[in-house]
């Protein structure tokens, strides 16, 4: 089993993104190295724009994650509605 991960700066802007990821990805786990929120998941992780919008109550452009993204691991697939990380093997 291969792990994917994504990490954000630990601030208010990232909170709804983190919450959305943890809600939409049952096997995802968050850890908190200094200054960061790191989410690990087996094989695949999806970030859904709609889930974030539900939490914030306003439109969200998925590319906004760039402002607080720190690092990631896995192959990316991205469109207007979702961004996924996975390893295909």
């Amino acid at each position, binding site marked *: 089993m291969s792990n994917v991960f994504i990490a954000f700066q630990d601030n208010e802007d990232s909170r709804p993104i983190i919450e959305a990821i943890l809600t939409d990805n049952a096997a995802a786990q968050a850890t908190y*190295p*200094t200054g*960061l929120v790191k989410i690990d998941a087996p094989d695949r992780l999806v970030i859904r724009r709609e889930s974030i919008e539900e939490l914030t109550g306003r439109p969200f452009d998925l590319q906004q994650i*760039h402002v607080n993204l*720190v*690092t990631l*691991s896995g192959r990316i697939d991205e469109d207007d509605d979702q961004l996924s990380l996975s390893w295909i093997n």
Partner: protein
Amino acid sequence: MDTPVIKKKIGLKERYAAMTRGLAWDTTYQLMDKVFPYDKYEGIKIHDWDKWEDPFRLTMDAYWKYQGEKEKKLYAVIEAFAQNNGQLGVTDARYLSALKIFLTGVSPLEYYAYRGFAHVGRQFTGAGARVACQMQSIDELRHNQTQTHALSHYNKYFNGMHSPKHMYDRVWYLSVPKSFFEDAYTGGPFEFLTAVSFSFEYVLTNLLFVPFMSGAAHNGDLSTVTFGFSAQSDESRHMTLGIECIKFMLEQDPDNVPIVQRWIDKWFWRGYRLLSIVAMMQDYMLPKRVMSWRESWEMYVEKNGESLFRDLARYGIRKPKGWTQACEGKDHISHQTFAVFYNYAAAAAFHTWVPEEKEMAWLSEKYPETFDSLYKPRWDYWREQAAKGNRFYQKTLPMLCQTCQIPMIFTEPGDATKIAYRETEHKGDKYHFCSDHCKDIFENEPEKYVQAWLPPQQIYQGNCFKEGVDPSAEGFDPLLAVLDYYNLKVGRDNFDFEGSEDQKNFATWCGDSVEGVKK
């Protein structure tokens, strides 16, 4: 009144394609091969550039918008840091030595990366690849600028940070990063992407940024943390470029596989050697430690690497040839590197010191198989001698590895009591290496590495003195003349941390005696 018809916006993928590849064309007034003369000679076969999948899809408007937001946040923090005398908040002034290495050894690499990506951003036939490289080029220039801004505040208060560009081009340990990058950008465009985007920015980057930025956070260095995290979000785009480029080459033609494998072997090893200096910073130069180099290596390389190379196995790619030796090195390289800088502290533009007792206890705990038996004895001896006023300074220049240009400090796999020596001959001359892997790199492209500007050799050839200096003059001191050539301020930038201006100043500013500052 008619209801307005809301036209559906075209999706991100189509938008991006229209604004990038959609604007490219095949030339008719000149042959495409003449317009793009550099992307075939390496032997990489590309049959269909349309198969290139854009890694991140930031159109220029989105790029400027989000990068602009990041910049505003970053510069606000840097300003606040300066206004609040943030430099007083670092755990202790020894920490600054890590930043001195960063500013002189890493920030110039960002500049080289900007140049390298600008070059390849013109050379690929595929417009998708060109755009991704051009964007990265701007990112890298941004990194050089933001690092310079963030660290320049410290330059007002601490020594050794006054001449980063000058030192990068001359100082002996800085030839390590400089030669690394010059090797990369004098290769062809596909090698450059394999070297930088894949091997460095994908496989190894987390080792530099994530634990070190956490280390900066632990040591009160808000400025560095902020630029680190801000840069790393750009790095996540760079990583996706790296993995896409590898995947693309491997899928285009099976003949590409052995070429790519050779590059992965070479650049994993070169990147690993380059990171020795980061290993040392992490284990020895963070007064408040976060995790050991060994732990970072296990988390960010071994675990990640398993997933990655399992993914690439289906193309016929295996783990880099030096993988096992690099993993074995996790118990050794930080100690070996800091010890050699302790040796040569008279010639370095940052301070070194003997670790405190509790720091040695931490090192023993983190390196149970190696620290006490192999490395602690020298620290104990040096501490004892320094207390008698006999601090050790090695004045004779070291022997370097021809390829990685690091002094020959690395030991035999399986026996860390023996320095590893390897050699080969080329056109009647001997060349020496720290390892089989550096030797293989040389033997694959000897014409390149015989040109290496090795600092000790250059010093002995008389090439490291300022203009007008007369080595035959009475009272000539070659070491002082070299340090002057480096623009290194003797007695301020160099020697032990104990007794340094940085130490005294920091204690004064914090209202402590020097002894009181030691925690």
